[in-house]
């Protein structure tokens, strides 16, 4: 009989396999970027291996939690701490690229005309697609909160509706960003403006895609009755992550699109 509430995980191959996969990914990326033969293949293989690792590892977490009942209250508390700390690291990651943006834009050098935006850069109108994207993400933040309240109330249909709406809004946002990226008059290679703009918004877009995938997994689990009114931490973690993504966009809109334009 178990005398403690903690989850001592059964031996698993996934941590080692994930480490190996990220190694293949890194070597492949280096090979590809330096023009080595077979670089693309190794990179693609590494990418597939990492995606597979994430899938099998998290699938096991769902099995241990939902189907084996290992996630007692203290275990959940640990997961909450973990997710909050992870989100903190993501915020610090974005802080680095915001720092780079402000470093170059607050004191623009003579080489770019001592102005920001630099001479010759045709910036995007913040009140066109970027503002629409802001509204989309803010709305998705509201819809995910709606879904959460529905789960708390035990209202399955509304929870599904709220979560589906959130994912739809997220996909539309990504679509508009992709359109902007294709149609923008400047590229990542267009000086310091291009570098800071695409690094910050690109990293954000990557996080939007990850957040959308996380929410989609939650939709699958919600549909298949994994969550209960009291216990649905996977959903809460996804919602926290999504709110972080939303807040980062607000900073991007204000600093990069509006002030930087």
């Amino acid at each position: 009989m178990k005398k403690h509430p903690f989850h001592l995980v059964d031996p698993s191959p996934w941590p080692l396999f994930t480490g190996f996969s990220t190694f293949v990914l890194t070597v492949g990326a280096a090979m590809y970027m330096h023009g080595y033969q077979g670089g693309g293949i190794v990179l693609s293989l590494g990418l597939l291996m990492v995606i597979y690792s994430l899938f099998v590892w998290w699938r096991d977490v769902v099995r241990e939690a939902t189907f084996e009942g290992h996630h007692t209250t203290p275990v959940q508390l640990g997961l909450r701490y973990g997710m909050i700390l992870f989100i903190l690291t993501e915020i610090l990651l974005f802080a680095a690229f915001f720092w780079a943006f402000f470093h170059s834009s607050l004191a623009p050098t003579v080489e770019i005309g001592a102005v920001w935006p630099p001479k010759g850069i045709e910036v995007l109108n913040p009140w066109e697609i970027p503002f629409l994207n802001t509204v989309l993400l803010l709305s998705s933040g509201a819809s995910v909160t709606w879904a959460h309240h529905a789960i708390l109330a035990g209202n399955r249909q509304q929870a599904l509706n709220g979560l589906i709406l959130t994912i739809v809004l997220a996909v539309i946002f990504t679509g508009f960003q992709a359109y902007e990226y294709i149609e923008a008059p400047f590229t990542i290679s267009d000086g310091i403006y291009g570098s800071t703009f695409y690094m910050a918004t690109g990293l954000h877009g990557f996080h939007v895609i990850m957040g959308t995938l996380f929410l989609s997994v939650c939709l699958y689990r919600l549909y298949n009755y994994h969550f209960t009114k009291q216990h649905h931490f996977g959903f809460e973690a996804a919602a926290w992550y999504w709110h972080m993504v939303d807040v980062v966009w607000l900073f991007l809109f204000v600093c990069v699109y509006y002030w930087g334009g």
Partner: protein
Amino acid sequence: MWRGTAAARLLLRACASSPVLQQHTQQLLPPLQSACRPAILLPVTRWIQTKAALRSHGGGQLDEFGIATGAEREELEAKREGKKRFDLDPPRGPFGTHDAPAIVESHYDVRIVGCSGGVGEDEHDVTWFHLEKGKPYECPVCSQVFQLKVTGVGGQPGHDEHH
């Protein structure tokens, strides 16, 4: 949702009507409950059956804890009765004396115990010691007396069957 099971039925019916798959099925599969189920679809139909089972389970036979199981369910059931399945809080009680020692429950015959004294001014830094069965122990700082009460299997703490 009806969509899931309808799709499964359509899939099976489609495969049953396919001559290639039927031939293949007859060659490979020994008698199955459903003769029109090709081997390759087995993982898919198993998954759909599991989903159906989960859905029907959600249809009305669940108690207030839903699909909770294992340690989580034990925790919830104990909470419903007002008890704690896993108690992580340090034990509290009246100051232990020789006549009425502070009782510390233990699964084994010996347990590590820490005494922090009485309340307010009588509190001191935690003093740790082994408390053994049948040997009441007096705290060297505040003289509080402790006694072990074995509520579990007893014996020496060692390697468990499960952790």
